[in-house]
């Protein structure tokens, strides 16, 4: 059989892609599917094999969630709060910064690097630096508060302030990525839309609401979905910023992934941890589907 050039190109493309596919299947998909399997077993990692227990792990999570001061309940409600605080502030701040950056010509590269640097910095390093900034008495932020005569704040030491304090660091860290994506989106909007609108007498506010924002919709959806997923999976910052990495004080900062880690690697209850992972998987899936359905609409002019 003789193949056309086009067909041969396609076959080669598949051959090259299959290398990456093998990697994904072995390193990503197989463990993911295994997590489903583990969640139905009473799997203690030392024992190697675990007896099949059906939905027992899920029942245990359900029972634990009903107890007073439950870690599971705290983990899920905190995780949702991280998303609710984190994603909107990240989007609004990033859009504002991107709009400003789009205006300037001089030094714009410097600013972009400055905003992007935290994104490529290790979360552990970021956590350590912010821990020092947040320190009572000796921390830079509290000293600054002192200087302007405001009362010192406990930040991560207080159950009320800890979660917002960690969210702020996560927003700071992820901001650069969102800014760059927004900037790319803004630069893609054809300049003649604005010119036409201006001739029709539109003011700056109208330009933003009627042209910039609608045309950025795909970008906003993309960043919302990615941002939501990243906040739902928050782990490293919490592990390194809460006292002894426990998600405290008083479980006020713990997340689902942190509980997965603690159950799996501190209590060695892999089945229970697996069940939590599966629940998180479906939570992410559900939220992502909802977001994609309701927020994506095509805007064309």
């Amino acid at each position, binding site marked *: 059989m003789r193949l056309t050039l086009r067909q041969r190109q396609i076959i080669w493309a598949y051959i090259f892609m299959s290398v990456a596919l093998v990697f994904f299947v072995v390193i990503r998909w197989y463990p993911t*599917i295994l997590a489903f399997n583990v969640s139905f077993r009473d799997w203690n990692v*030392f*024992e190697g094999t675990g007896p099949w227990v059906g939905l027992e792990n899920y029942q245990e999570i359900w029972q634990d969630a009903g107890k007073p*001061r439950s870690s599971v309940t705290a983990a899920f409600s905190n995780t949702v709060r991280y998303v609710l605080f984190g994603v909107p502030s990240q989007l609004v701040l990033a859009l504002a910064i991107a709009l400003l950056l789009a205006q300037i010509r001089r030094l714009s590269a410097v600013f972009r690097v400055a905003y992007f640097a935290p994104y490529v910095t290790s979360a552990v390093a970021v956590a350590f630096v912010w821990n020092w900034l947040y320190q009572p*008495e000796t921390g830079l932020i509290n000293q600054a508060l002192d200087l302007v005569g405001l009362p010192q704040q406990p930040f991560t030491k207080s159950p009320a302030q800890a979660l917002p304090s960690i969210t702020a660091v996560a927003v700071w860290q992820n901001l650069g990525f969102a800014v760059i994506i927004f900037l790319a989106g803004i630069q893609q909007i054809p300049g003649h839309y604005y010119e036409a609108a201006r001739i029709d007498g539109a003011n700056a506010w109208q330009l933003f609401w009627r042209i910039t924002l609608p045309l950025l919709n795909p970008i906003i959806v993309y960043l919302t979905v990615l941002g939501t997923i990243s906040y739902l999976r928050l782990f490293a910052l919490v592990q390194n910023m809460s006292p002894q990495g*426990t998600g405290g004080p008083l479980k006020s900062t713990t997340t689902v992934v942190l509980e997965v880690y603690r159950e799996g690697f501190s209590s060695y209850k892999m089945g229970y941890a697996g069940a939590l992972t599966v629940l998180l998987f479906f939570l992410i899936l559900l939220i992502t589907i909802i977001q994609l359905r309701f927020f994506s609409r095509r805007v064309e002019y």
Partner: protein
Amino acid sequence: MKRSKLYVLIGTLLVAAMLLAACPAPAAPAAETASEPAAAEEAMADEVVEIEYWQYNFAARVNAMDQLIAQFEEANPNIKVVHNADIPYAEFRDKIAASVPAGVGPDVATLFYGWQSVWIDSGYLVPLPEDAFPPAMVAEEFSPMVQASFVEGTLYTLPTAVRALALFYNKDLMADAGLDPENPPSTLDELADQAVACTQRDDEGSLVVQGFVADPSAQDHHWFREVLVRQFGGVPYTDDYSEVLYNDEAGLQAWNYLLAFHTELATGDRDLFDGSTNAFVGGHVCFHVDGSFRLGTIANNNPDMNFGVTELPSHNGVKSTFGSYWTHGLTKKAAADQARFDAAVKFLQFITSADAGALWVDIVGELPAQLAAGSNPELLADEKLGAFAAGLEYSHATFFADESQQRQAIIDSFDMVVLTDEDPATALQIAADTDQEVLDDFWSSR
């Protein structure tokens, strides 16, 4: 169109999950099957038996163990010990856990005694053979706290060395406050008084020198359970550690004593300098409850600090201290092969001997677990180690079902009082309930 793709994706995932669920969970250690023929060959050829020993990375411990292994290999030329101490402390348990399904890992492993129950429950540790480690010998020759290594009458692990808590005091800060550095507090009342006298604040009321910092996330949760509760006339748990008893009147007095350093007396704030330990090592705290292992930290980080160590303050004439230890156990990997198991037993006997304990105290600074080496007059007279050694005879080691969860129960209740103004008695009851739940969980599954 989009939606149908999604259904296909979910469907595929579910089908795949079912398929995988239907097949047996991946078989554990390949080593079990692979090692048997290998061991048989070894025995036939009369070759060297190789066993693996794991501990976490801590320079002094690695050095001491290297010397012990060299001695052991010289006396037993047919046994080779592979020493793996490359794992940082924070990852030690994770690595052990990951090594099991991979079929690799140690034959002899060092673990904190508080982890024993979890490791035993999961079948990772096997009982020590009674002929090599008779229970009567352990009861007679080892520090009483080592009884915590017996689970329902079966001995699972044995340590080289043990540690106890004592009171560290900063002599310079005491002198600055007009206290006599040669007369550190010897009772709980003196500790409270001197801590208040030693505390200094600046004009704005910020703490400059902290007298005593109550910090349950450091050693104070141990101090509360095994020392303060007993000194106020209570007992923390039933003798078999199956039931919490510290939620009574004596326990509440002990609890209030600990809380007072943070609330009424306000002699310190654990949030400054990242906890009481760092604050003491940095030279900002007068009195601090800690273990002998902290001597090394101070020597490394603040060698010029002028400090002393004395026995924990007594109360109502009761002396007590919390003892703890890193202990060695034999794993199911060793038990899978008779030749290796025999070699591992020999090695364990060697590293838990009185001689090994004597070498250990010189290099690591932990006290020998064998009473013969621990009651050495030279050790008791040591300016720093003497206070810890003196505590060994009245020390108690808590039997933990899950150390991290039981510790967290005390920390959370402390936080409830100092951060959310919870009533101390209510908070203590919550700690007891949480602790009891962990214990029930453990004992009911046995």
